[in-house]
């Protein structure tokens, strides 16, 4: 491959469609004769429904009011997609009178207009027998449990004797932290339009994973997956909330079947606070022991995350701790607290974002105790290999990230003492932290089709929630085929396309990119065969070994002639398009040979106003080693988004629950605080020029998650540097900083 497009800062191929409104999102695929459904959410946090007054049925325009009293029993066949908790059973909606959490869908109103559906939903009277829900992991009645063994992650790991090493350590820190529940709150709310044609169901539905949505809805309704089509060409932000298929999709399909019309169902902003997953609140203990010269001798990481009563949501809370630093004695332990709440789900940087907060703030604390610069402390504990598996890293550029980051950020100007830097009345602090996220790659497939005009069509059931999948995949296809990007059309977001893995876990570039590359190579092989069979082709009767592709032309190896173009080869055979569909999975041997992760070093400068206790990020820099950067412009943009998410996690985001009934008290954008434009300072992104020959043929690791991980601890460390006050709770609130 002769890279022409890969590595170039192309602007978004879909940018014009997005800014002109031509891009269609799920709720915009309006269908003829479409009706509207509105979910009625429970107003208690636990208990049962005792009655539903049917009077609202007679309001104008109402087509149906569906509840457990009249809903058909749905098959709910077993199905666990790659993003569903492996232990427990998904919520069965409108199948019984039980209320398991506040906001659970308890009825569905379908009407001929949205306004009429909303009016009837507001008028619907439901009575309950309410019990007191347990919604906080610190509640005395909340009981931690060990996750079931069939969970996807190894929960408990140990090497050496960390307890003894901690007890005898020359210097130790032992801290506990509490990170708030967060909701994803993307710009685009969840929405589904469902339309039945006989036994066939079409869903225009916001999804990061259309292949799974197809299988899940087929299982819920007891249908063959091929009778369900899911279409989602554009996603208006998701951050993980559209990975699983949540109950509203089932409800839209159910409503459409009940009323015999296409039905649109969009969640309200409020409903997005309780039915579509959240980052679980986590409680953690992090104990570190070290020698006086700063060698780690013990790490103990105990993490507890919330989950629901009906499923065990597991995230990689302690995974980074296992391998991040060189240390002979390490114990990680992970527990769950089942609560009367909906099941949490993956949210950008799941596990690592929270777990690395604990590790990196503890390490910062240790640096102060030792009187060693935080970067130097990390350098002294930089491992040669992954000590949890004894495998080498496929590549690890962490120290290079710290080097270029510190240089650009001006870390040398930092005076180490807390409260030693000021700007007028403001206290200034600088903090740093390590970021990491595994380089995953699930099996993916793609189709490449060469047309008679020499252009290529590429299809994969992938998703683009914002990172630029449309653009980067086009770059991969163009370079693999040796043609300009303008001659490639890439389509995604349709379950009729070859299946792709979840658009999450920072693996889309690795997984789908590899599949597209393989599909393009496969179609080239087919074209070689076709040319070889053509007596008038210069490649007639020649084997693949004697031929090569140069700039989209097939020619004899070393030959002077320019060879045959795609258009000529396809045209010579009557213009019938040539296509290949290929699935690609990572060689399992690679996983056994290497420890594969992206790494980053994050630097933050904060100001703290001592009079009012407000901390603001003044500037931040992330330096990342994430393999090959396919599109520097979009990669930078993706990292900026992740860093902004980290600012939200550190200083603002918090879904606050009323302990009496589990009601989110800030279920709207006025009071669920996210950073707004004025909160976003000067952000900078650097990439280490990292070549990883092992991780996948493209050499890519992914950036979506690693760019959020590390931000919150860097901010907390900067706040400590500014104020001398260590805050072990996220978000850091004004109250924490009063009187500094």
């Amino acid at each position: 491959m002769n890279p022409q497009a890969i590595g170039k800062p192309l602007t978004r191929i879909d940018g014009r469609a997005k800014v002109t409104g031509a891009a269609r999102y799920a709720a915009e695929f309006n269908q003829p004769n479409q009706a509207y459904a509105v979910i009625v959410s429970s107003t208690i946090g636990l208990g049962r429904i005792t009655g539903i007054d049917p009077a609202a049925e007679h309001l104008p325009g109402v087509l149906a009011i569906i509840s457990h009293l009249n809903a058909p029993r749905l098959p709910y066949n077993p199905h666990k997609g790659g993003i569903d908790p492996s232990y427990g059973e998904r919520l069965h909606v409108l199948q019984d009178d039980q209320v398991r959490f506040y906001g659970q869908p308890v009825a569905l109103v379908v009407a001929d207009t949205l306004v009429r559906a909303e009016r009837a939903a507001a008028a619907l009277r439901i009575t309950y027998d309410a019990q007191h829900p347990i919604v906080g992991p610190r509640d005395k009645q909340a009981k931690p449990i060990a996750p079931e063994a069939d969970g996807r992650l190894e929960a408990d790991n140990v090497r050496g004797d960390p307890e003894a090493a901690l007890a005898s350590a020359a210097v130790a820190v032992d801290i506990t932290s509490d990170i708030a529940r967060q909701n994803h709150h993307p710009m685009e709310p969840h929405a589904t339009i469902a339309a039945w044609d006989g036994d066939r169901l079409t869903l225009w539905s916001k999804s990061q994973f259309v292949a799974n949505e197809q299988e899940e809805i087929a299982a819920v309704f007891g249908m063959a997956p091929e009778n369900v089509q899911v279409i989602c060409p554009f996603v208006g932000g998701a951050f993980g909330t559209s990975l699983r298929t949540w109950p509203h999709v089932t409800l839209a399909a159910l409503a459409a079947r009940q009323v015999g019309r296409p039905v649109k169902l969009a969640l309200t902003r409020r409903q997005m606070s309780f039915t579509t997953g959240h980052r679980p609140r986590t409680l953690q203990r992090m104990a570190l022991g070290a020698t006086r010269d700063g060698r780690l001798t013990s790490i103990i990481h105990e993490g507890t995350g919330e989950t629901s009563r009906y499923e065990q949501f597991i995230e990689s809370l302690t995974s980074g701790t296992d391998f991040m630093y060189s240390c002979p004695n390490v114990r990680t332990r992970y527990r769950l607290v089942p609560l009367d709440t909906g099941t949490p789900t993956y949210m950008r940087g799941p596990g690592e974002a929270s777990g690395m907060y604990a590790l990196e703030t503890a390490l910062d604390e240790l640096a102060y105790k030792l009187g060693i610069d935080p970067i130097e402390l990390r350098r002294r504990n930089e491992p040669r290999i992954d000590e949890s598996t004894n495998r080498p890293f496929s590549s690890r550029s962490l120290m290079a990230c710290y080097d270029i980051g510190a240089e650009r950020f001006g870390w040398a100007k930092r005076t180490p003492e807390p409260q030693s830097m000021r700007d007028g009345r403001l206290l200034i602090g600088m903090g740093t932290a390590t970021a990491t996220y595994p380089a995953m790659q699930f099996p993916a497939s793609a189709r490449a089709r060469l047309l008679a005009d020499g252009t290529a069509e590429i299809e994969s059931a992938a998703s683009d929630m914002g990172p630029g999948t449309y653009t980067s995949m086009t770059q991969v296809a163009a370079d693999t085929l040796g043609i300009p990007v303008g001659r490639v059309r890439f389509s995604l977001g349709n379950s009729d396309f070859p299946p792709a893995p979840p658009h999450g876990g920072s693996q889309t570039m690795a997984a789908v990119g590899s599949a597209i590359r393989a599909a393009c190579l496969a179609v080239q092989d087919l074209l070689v065969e076709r040319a070889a069979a053509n007596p008038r082709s210069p490649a007639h009767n020649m084997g693949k070994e004697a031929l090569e592709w140069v700039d989209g032309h097939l020619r004899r190896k070393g030959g002077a002639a320019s060879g045959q173009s795609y258009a000529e080869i396809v045209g010579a055979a009557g213009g019938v398009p040539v296509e290949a569909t290929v699935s690609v999975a990572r060689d399992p041997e690679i996983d056994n040979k290497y420890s594969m992760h992206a790494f980053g070093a994050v630097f933050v400068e904060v100001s703290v106003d001592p009079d009012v206790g407000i901390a603001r990020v003044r500037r931040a820099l992330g330096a990342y080693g994430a393999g090959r950067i396919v599109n520097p412009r979009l990669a930078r943009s993706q990292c900026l988004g992740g860093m902004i998410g980290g600012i939200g996690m550190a200083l603002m985001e918090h879904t606050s629950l009323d302990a009496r009934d589990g009601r989110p008290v800030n279920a709207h954008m006025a009071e669920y605080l996210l950073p707004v434009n004025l909160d976003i300072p000067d952000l900078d992104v650097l990439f280490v020029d990292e070549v990883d020959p092992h991780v996948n043929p493209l050499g890519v690791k992914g950036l979506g998650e690693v760019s959020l991980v590390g931000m919150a601890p860097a901010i907390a460390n900067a706040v400590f540097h500014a104020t001398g006050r260590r805050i072990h709770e996220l978000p850091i609130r004004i109250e924490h900083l009063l009187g500094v």
Partner: protein
Amino acid sequence: MRYEKPTTVEAATALLAGQGARVLAGGTDLLVQMRSRVLSPDVLVDIKGIDATRKITKDASGYTIGAAVTGAELKEHPTLSKDWPGLVEAANLIGSTQVQGRCSLGGNLCNGSPAADSVPGMIAAGAVATIAGPKGTRTLPVEDIMLAPRKLALTAGEFIVSFKIPARPAHGGDAYLRFIPRTEMDIAVVGCGVALALDAGGTCTAARVSLGAVAARPLLVEDGAKALIGTKVDDAALAKLEAAVRAACKPIDDKRGTVEFRIDVAGTLAKRTAKIALERARKV
């Protein structure tokens, strides 16, 4: 639900005297509350058809600002921002640019939130509301209008037509500051308005200090004004102001801030606000 847009004060008061009637000005609070079903009025009385609610007039005694004049219009007025910058800045903190095209002083006050940004600004400026009702017109200082959250000193059929803002004193200045956790687009955790006047020698001859979001209603802090009057607004006076303001606070704990924090920040904010008002008074 009925929508009415009367063009006279009399027609409006007649409509508002009926059951379930609500005044519609910019609608930036009312429509949101109707959408979330907090309020379900039977009659919406849009007062924007009444000329007096939509204009700003200026004479020797000061300004008369229509209750439905928008935040954007306040900002664009040729002299209002020069005379009462604190009041205009307070009103311009309501919502986003889009909301500024609709929101109004009358609506911000009558929504009945203790955290309304423009209300401490109006109180500090000495604004007096002109209220029309079935029995005719009366006036009431702005600090006497809101009694408690969502509770106003208006009776059935009454609505605010306009606000009278006095002429700025020769050496007068005002300011408004609020504290919010993020940098824009947020609801005040504490708000503070200060207006003061100086004599030729720089001694404070008159002052008004007001607070928002630290009690069940916006407050006029008389002791805060007393701390400033007769002084050069020096550090000693500002320390007394800080103490007086903290003493006046009766906040609650809520998800935006704790009691301790609000009391603490209110004092700090009052000092900062007074300093800005002082600078402005010295410059004119």
